[in-house]
Structures are given as C-alpha cells and as structure tokens.
C-alpha cells in the first residue's frame, strides 16, 4: 500500500480543495462581519454552523500545502454536519419547522427570527446552506479515486 498518493491524484484534488477553502474563508469572514462589525448576535444554531465552518479554513488550508487529497476525509464530516444544521436553520426560518421545537431563546437571540433579508430572499441561513453545499460539492470533486 503506497504511503504517498501519486502526483496526478494530488494535482487533480488541489483546485477543488482550494475552492472549498476559499468558500470557507469567505463564509468565516462573512460570519465575523455580521457578528463583530454589524453587531448581530449569533443565535444558537448560528453558533453550531460557525463551529463547523471555522475549522474548515484551517483543515483545508493545511491540506493545500503540500497538496493532500486526504484532507477531504477530515473536512467532509465538518462540512456535512454544518450543512445539516444550516438546512435545519433554513427550514426553521422558512416556517417548515415549528419554532417551538427550538431551544433557542435561552441566550436571548431567536433563531427563527430573520434579522437580515437582502434582495427580498437572501437570509443568513440561506447563505450558510449555499456555502456548505458548495464546500460539499468541491470536497466530493476532490475525493481520491480508487486505483484499479
């Protein structure tokens, strides 16, 4: 069993890894802008999405140099978990999940309340679902192929 993957495999994986890293970085800075600059307090669900998004910047960043397609193995669980929380949050603000089920108001910030709506439909949970979806797609594209 080879300890290092052939150069071709790592070359092919580099760009999708880089794309995923870029999206994670933009999302992280965006979340920090909303929270620290605009002063919007993150609700509990936002915190869980941050918990899964922020480490992606470091894990994927470490996977870029040297190009290491196995970074996907470590990033995928984070991206998947983040996607699930974001999808739940989006369903919640869209009214598909009753808000009474959410243990959110302990910190005083409601998760079901929409604080930002750009262009009439872009909400923070929608951006989060989009970001996690794109990261997942990029990670799948970077998955190492089985050698024949």
């Amino acid at each position, binding site marked *: 069993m080879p300890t290092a993957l052939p150069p071709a495999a790592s070359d092919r994986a*580099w760009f999708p890894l880089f794309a995923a890293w870029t999206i994670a*970085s933009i999302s992280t*800075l965006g979340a920090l*802008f909303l929270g620290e*600059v605009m002063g919007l307090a993150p609700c509990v669900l936002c915190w869980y999405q941050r918990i899964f998004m922020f480490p992606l910047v470091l894990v994927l960043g470490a996977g870029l*140099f040297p190009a290491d397609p196995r970074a996907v193995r470590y990033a995928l669980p984070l991206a998947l978990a983040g996607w699930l929380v974001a999808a739940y949050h989006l369903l919640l603000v869209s009214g598909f999940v009753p808000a009474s089920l959410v243990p959110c108001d302990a910190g005083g910030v409601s998760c079901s309340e929409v604080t930002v709506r750009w262009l009439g439909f872009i909400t923070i949970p929608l951006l989060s679902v989009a970001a996690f979806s794109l990261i997942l797609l990029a990670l799948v594209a970077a998955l190492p192929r089985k050698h024949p």
Partner: protein
Amino acid sequence: MNKKLFVALVALLLVAVFMGATYVYRAEKAQQAVSLAARNRDALVRAHAPTLGPAQAPVHIVEFLDPACETCAAFWPLVKQLMARHPRDVRLSIRYAPLHQGSLDVIRLLEASRLQGRYWETLETLLRTQNAWTEHHTARIERVWPQLGGVGLDLARLKADMASPAIERLIEQDVRDLRALNVSKTPEYFVNGRPLPEFGFDPLVALVQQELQAAGRAR
C-alpha cells in the same frame, strides 16, 4: 511555489476586503449617528435630567446609563476624573437606558433618592456595589437595600416615592428619547450633541478636548 503565492494573495485579498468593508460600515454608522443626534437635539437634552457641573459650562456630556450595566459602572470613576480635570467647563447629564432586566426598579429608586437630595451619592453607591445586586445581567432590587446603609436615605419615604407617577413619566420620556436617538448600548455618551465616533473612554476624552478647544477653554 506559485500556488503558495497565489493562496497567500487570495487570503490577503479576503482579509483586505473584510477590513475595507468594516471601515466603510463603521464610517457610515458613525455618520448616521451624528446626523440622528443632530436631528433629535430635543430628545438629547431634557430639563428633567439630573445634571452635575456648572450650568454655563461650554461642554455638556449627556450619558445614557443603565445602573445595572457593568461597563457604565466601570466608566463612572473615569468620567468623574474627567469632570474633576475641568471643574468649570464640563457638565454631565444622566439619562436612563433601562436595557437590563430589573433596572427599571433601580432607576425608580435613583429618582426617589433625588427627591431627598442624595442622588449622586446613591448613584455612586449603586455603581460601586453593582456586583452585589446584579446576577446574570439582571438587577435584583431586594439586594439593593442592604447596600444603601451609608447614604443616609429615608428608606420608607424612598419606597413610597418610587411609585410616583412623575418618576414614571420621566422614565417613559427617557425611553422614548433613547429610541429616537437609536441608543442600543450603554453607556452611550454625547458631547455637545455629538455621539462618540467609536466606543471607548479615550474617544470620549478626545471629543471633550475638541469641544473645549472649540470653546477656547483647552489647556
């Protein structure tokens, strides 16, 4: 190698965009606050507000304060020092921003102490002993009473006065004014009608200095 450079440049670009957006956003907010305060000058300066310092002082600080706010308590000694440095030129008015749970009762108490001529002693005692009567950002009036021993208040009268409709009207006016001025955090300072460009004690000192200079009183 050039991949490393490329990623470094992208990272740099992202951070630069973040910092640029932060700068633009803050500048815009500060500008909005300035014009909001200018348009609502009436809401800022009310005759009913407790005021310290000479009436003719050229620099007037209006502080929106919540007695249960930790930062307000931390800033109080600094503000007193600032006033002591300019005893003839700086005046301070207190407006209320009851943003913490339970602070309405404490504000009623403060205003009732004013009727006994012991407002500033009471305010100082409340802020100094704040830890003893707040818990998880909630003010507990029942824990305030034991702190007031040294102030020399007539507690029976104080409790009766706290129900006064005049005090209720004053608080309601302050709450209307803080909404008009979009005060959402405490302490919030306005110096001669201008909000702080950014939060902090140094920006407050700088703004006071500017106004002193404008009035020809700077040293």
